[in-house]
């Protein structure tokens, strides 16, 4: 048991899998010699050498294409897209190639790979380096998606992602990199497609992801002090989606709140809201409320960005308003 940062958990998870399986290789921009611009991959080059840990040119399409072709032919690559915003320059490989090749070939093509990326805001990087794009991917059948909120989940879900036979997008939240957690020693392997209930409360269900998870938890504590007991669920995996955990909770609490960092429209919370409004409609005791970043690009100025992304205060206010 040692205290681990979310940042260090990334390289621990990757190293765990690279030690286990020689077919795991890792490529990206400035990931080897420099250990990554977020220092999430420090030490991998030193341990696994330049054949398995590779610095690439600024060529995102070539990077993901190389990862895909290698995955089709016996390797299990991990590729880094430095900032999730950059998926826009290589989106074709993700949504048109990786996501569809198995189906189009009726199962002939395997793409066991992981694409890691620094996702999300609250770091004052401005509109082109702060987006939460997990819902871009959720709209496309054929790719799995995880977005861990803690160091422990980073290690375990990284292992699960690398071992999964399908392409997995692994979203690391930039604003969580410095957070710490006690993580057990030894091998850790988690399961994709499983949400985690972090807090039990009978009055309402709050569903959150990544950076929104600690904020939702803190909000729940404050709401409890006011007599509103919330269940808080960390979705963790958007594809596959653990609808059981969510539906069961909402069926018992009767109220659903989603806390989403993405700009509002077509966020993952919209999908969950629509599932709930269909499947447990008769259990609902009131409106479904989504707490999201407004539908605007993210501003750079600290005070403005803090107003944009759902804060603990805003979560508390919106839940209180809706529950009373």
């Amino acid at each position, binding site marked *: 048991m040692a205290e681990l940062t979310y940042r260090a958990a990334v390289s621990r998870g990757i190293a765990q899998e690279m030690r286990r399986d020689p077919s795991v*290789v890792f490529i990206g921009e400035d990931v080897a010699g420099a250990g990554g611009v977020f220092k999430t991959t420090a030490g991998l080059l030193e341990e696994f050498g330049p*054949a398995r840990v*590779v610095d*690439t*040119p600024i*060529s*995102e*399409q*070539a*990077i*993901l*294409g*190389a*990862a*895909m*072709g*290698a*995955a*089709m*032919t*016996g*390797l299990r*690559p991990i590729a880094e897209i430095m900032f999730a915003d950059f998926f826009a320059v290589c989106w*074709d*490989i993700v949504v*048109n*190639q990786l996501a569809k*090749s*198995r*189906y*189009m*070939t*009726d*199962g*002939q*093509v*395997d793409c*066991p790979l992981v694409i890691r990326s620094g996702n999300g805001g609250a770091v004052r990087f401005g509109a082109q380096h702060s987006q939460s794009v997990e819902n871009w991917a959720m709209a496309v*059948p*054929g790719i799995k998606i995880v977005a861990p909120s803690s160091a422990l989940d980073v290690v375990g879900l990284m292992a699960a992602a690398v071992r*999964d*036979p*399908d392409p997995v997008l692994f979203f690391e939240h930039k604003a969580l990199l410095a957070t710490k957690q006690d993580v057990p020693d030894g091998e850790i392997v988690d399961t994709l*497609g499983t949400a985690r209930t972090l807090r039990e409360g009978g009055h309402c269900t709050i569903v959150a992801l990544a950076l929104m998870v600690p904020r939702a938890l803190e909000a729940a504590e404050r709401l409890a002090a006011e007599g509103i007991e919330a269940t808080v669920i960390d979705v963790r995996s958007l*594809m*596959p*989606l*653990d*609808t*059981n955990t969510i539906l069961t909770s909402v069926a018992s609490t009767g109220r659903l709140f989603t806390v989403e960092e993405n700009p509002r429209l077509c966020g993952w919370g919209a999908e969950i809201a629509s*599932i709930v409004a269909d499947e447990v409609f008769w259990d609902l005791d009131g409106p479904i409320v989504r707490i999201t970043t407004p539908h605007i690009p993210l501003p750079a100025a600290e005070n403005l960005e803090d107003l944009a992304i759902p804060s603990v205060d805003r979560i508390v206010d919106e839940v209180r308003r809706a529950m009373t």
Partner: protein
Amino acid sequence: MNAVASREAAYGQHPPVLPEPFDPNMDQAAIPEDVRLDMYRKQHEIRQLEKRLYDLFLQNLVKGTSHLAIGMEAIGAAFGAALRPDDYSFATYRGHGHTIARGVPPEPIIAEMLGRATGLLGGKGGSMHLTSVEHGMMGSYAIIGAHLCIANGAAWSAKLRNSGQVAVAFFGDGATNIGAFHEAVNYAAVYHLPTVFVCENNLYMEYTSIGQVTPVRNPAADRSPAYGLDATIVDGNDADAVYLAAVAAIDRARDDGGPSIIEAKTYRHGGHSRADPGTYRPDDEISAWMEHDPIPMYHQRLLRLGVGEAQLTEIETSVAAAIDAATEAAKAAPFPPAEALWTNVWADGGSQWRN
């Protein structure tokens, strides 16, 4: 290829591009007779298959779109002969020929075009995505550029696995203007990958002549200095010329000599796709290229080299018989069952996204 300047008045930015005469020295090329006969057979397999697909389309049995390579068979045939069975091919939507050239039988190809359960892709992929991993045919890709990057990945994996395998990516002249082309060739050069980039320059990107939208004359070859690579330009309608270039590039790649670019000049006899009559092309350009047809030329060469007419006729007719049989079998096959809709999104065989 010589642009006929005098025609600029008539055709503006779009003068006819006429083929060079076939190189007589190719008769003497040191290519074993069995290889030549194999390439002759493969060219016939491709052409007869595609002519059949066109007939089936006219009978409205082929839905959606399809892109034929009639007139361009020599390239696929030559690479089919030059590649090792475990090498990797990556093709575009114009990939029927490259698929059959790797040894995929015609029946599942025709069945796929007809949307049948026995199709190469169970009917789920269609004309633009022919794939047969067991034959090293790693896919046909319908969005321009991506597969050049993906081919690098197969080459990289072969290199790491020390398997000696080579990855060949076929693409068109028009594809050289997209960003992924630049990223892919550059990436292959940086990592010295065993990737062979083969540009099938048929002079047109869909309905627009390549010269109109490209600042260099040889869209692939003239880009090679940007990656520190040499390029080879060959008559893409002469199977022997393509074969020699293919063997050289494949051997180099196998010996860790890095990537190559081959630009093969060719021409499609028909339009870009089934929807296109190809009327934007000048008549004398079309007629000159029709005379520069790879198959009759190769037929003549084999005769010159002493192969008997009877043997060539036998090849031609046995291919025809095989295509006929394959067509009947494909037509008799059932359409995909409804359950097929739900299979093979994921490696577990299913399409479940929730519990």
